[in-house]
């Protein structure tokens, strides 16, 4: 399994936004790999560039976005250089994506069945007569009760959890090889959260689909992911198998992140806040290590370009003063 080429392979990927108030260096030198059947967690504070990365991979970035460098290969396709037509063909069929806020992520004035049919019509050879059946089947696969009736429902008639199931049905309708799940459970209550995560995991197992799971919730990632990639301010700072990461985080940021994650038994007081804010990514003279200002371990050496991450599945860290594996936990 480790020898197979990764399904998705991102190397040295950079991206910036040209806005009215300056250029935002949103991503820089991002490395990432997702293998077939694997669930990778992409973790970081909000604003760290997780979603930006996933949108960029699908080619649905904001108009202001410019890819500044690096590669992003999906199977044989170079995503950064693919034509819009190629990308459209890949999106939804090979790489699917689900989002947070399932209610607003569905077209409010179109029946959910029709929205699934739109995707099927676009990506499959299903004949018009079959579309309805296949949409209902897709709904049934995500355990929606009474899918025939739900087929004709509008999003506002469904609960949030139900909407997320519809989103998943829509995303998985064409059996994609990779699912990008962008905070899929945010805004849902805890029971529904668990059900949704189980559903995704179950579907992934059933179809051998790879999953890139984007979340700010380290605990949730720990529960469901094979490997975890930690992002900070547009950089990947650490990547490791889940167990290894939790056993011994090596980047100071990861360590703080883990400390800030509430465990079931901890109290509010025990939660440590991460000091400082993300740096202003509009600055032209961004430090080599974007965590530097918030880091207690920073030294002059940190001004040198960051060390490259070791390729997966190694425990890789982009830091000149990594924590000792033993010192943490």
């Amino acid at each position, binding site marked *: 399994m480790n020898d197979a080429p990764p399904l998705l392979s991102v190397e040295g990927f950079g991206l910036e936004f040209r806005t009215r108030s300056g250029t935002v260096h949103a991503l820089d030198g991002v490395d990432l790999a997702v293998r077939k059947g694997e669930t990778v967690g992409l973790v970081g504070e909000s604003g760290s560039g997780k979603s930006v990365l996933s*949108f960029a991979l*699908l080619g*649905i970035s904001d108009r202001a976005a410019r890819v500044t460098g690096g590669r992003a290969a999906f199977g044989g396709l170079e995503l950064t250089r693919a034509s*819009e037509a190629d*990308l*459209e*063909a*890949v*999106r*939804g*069929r090979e790489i*699917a*994506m689900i*989002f947070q*806020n399932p209610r*607003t*992520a*569905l*077209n*409010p*004035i*179109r029946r959910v069945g029709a929205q699934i049919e*739109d*995707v099927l019509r*676009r*990506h499959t050879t299903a004949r018009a007569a079959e579309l309805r059946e296949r949409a209902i089947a897709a709904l049934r696969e995500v355990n929606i009760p009474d899918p025939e009736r739900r087929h004709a429902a*509008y999003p*506002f*008639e469904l609960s949030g959890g139900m909407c997320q199931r519809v*989103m998943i049905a*829509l*995303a998985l309708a064409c059996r994609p090889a990779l699912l990008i799940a962008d905070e899929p459970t945010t805004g849902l209550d805890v029971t529904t959260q668990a059900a949704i995560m189980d559903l995704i995991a179950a579907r992934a197992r059933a179809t051998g689909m790879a999953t890139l799971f984007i979340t700010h919730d380290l605990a949730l990632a720990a529960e469901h992911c094979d490997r975890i990639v930690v992002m900070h301010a547009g950089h990947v700072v650490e990547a490791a198998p889940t167990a290894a990461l939790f056993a011994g985080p090596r980047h100071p940021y990861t360590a703080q992140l883990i400390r800030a994650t509430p465990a079931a038994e901890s109290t509010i007081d025990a939660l440590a806040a991460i000091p400082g804010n993300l740096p202003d990514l509009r600055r032209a003279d961004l430090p080599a290590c974007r965590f530097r200002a918030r880091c207690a371990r920073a030294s002059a050496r940190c001004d040198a370009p960051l060390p490259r991450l070791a390729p997966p599945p190694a425990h890789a860290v982009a830091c000149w003063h990594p924590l000792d594996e033993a010192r943490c936990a």
Partner: protein
Amino acid sequence: MIRIVALRLVGALPNLAGVVVVTFLLTRALPGDPAAFFAGAAASAEAVEQIREKLGLNRNLVEQFGLYLRDLARGDFGQSLSTGQPVLTELVSRLPASLELTFCALVFATVVALPLGVAAARRPGSWIDHLCRLVTTAGVSLPTFFTGLLLAYVFYFLLGVAPSPLGRLDPVFTPPPPVTRMYLIDSLLAGEGTVFRACLAQIALPAVTMGLFVLAPLARMTRASMLGVLSSDFIRTARAAGLASPTVLYTYAFRNALLPVVTTLGMVFSFLLGSNVLVEKVFAWPGIGSYAIESLTASDYAPIQGFVLAMGVLYVLLNLAIDLLYGLIDPRVRLEA
């Protein structure tokens, strides 16, 4: 659906009451003395007094209002003194002309503004966006009376491509048999293609004059609404699902963007109905707008009251139609009622 209609109608009653009262007060506050006006060229003071009595103008305001309400309840809108006809008859005979003109203006504005707004929203900041802004802003900056005169001068007088700005139909033609009293529709119903074309030629300039003026609110609203929708979550979902661009643009974005546009449409329509008075005057268009202006300058109360009341009713009906249209587009409105 029927429930919505009924609820809406009931909800509009206080509005109508407000309109009746305000209209009555406003017209009574007008400084003109209709009695003096209608007494004729060489009337004595006694003759004027006589007419004042005949018109009920010597009673107090409350009594006058009471009389007015009683007549309204009977469907009697009074008689226009300046044209000598029952107001209701005249409104009914003139309204189709105004509606026809307004509809044509609206169709013109919609056909131009919506695609322009969509195109601008797709590429904000591009040349087409600037063009859209320029065209619509120029349109709304045109004084309608000036545009009308200019268009009539250029297209009728100089170029000779438009027919004379003389009402709804050249006197050479006989109007089509009245069904809806809108000439365009009636001539089609009667299968009279030539008359239809003549009517169309006649209505083109005034409709464009009025339409230009409301391009801006429509195009702006389309653009803004389209921009909002295009950056919304479900469009991202649609794009992430790989739907083809036209599907995303029209099936997903445009239909949603239409909702606020439809609301604007209602406002624009009532705005058109009101502001077409000047255009009707320039093009000798026999609608209710010119009727109102003529009555106002003649201090002829009954037609003004009737006109405003008709406008109020029309406004309520219009909003009802807009609501229903809204319901057709947006299931949330339809199903929650």
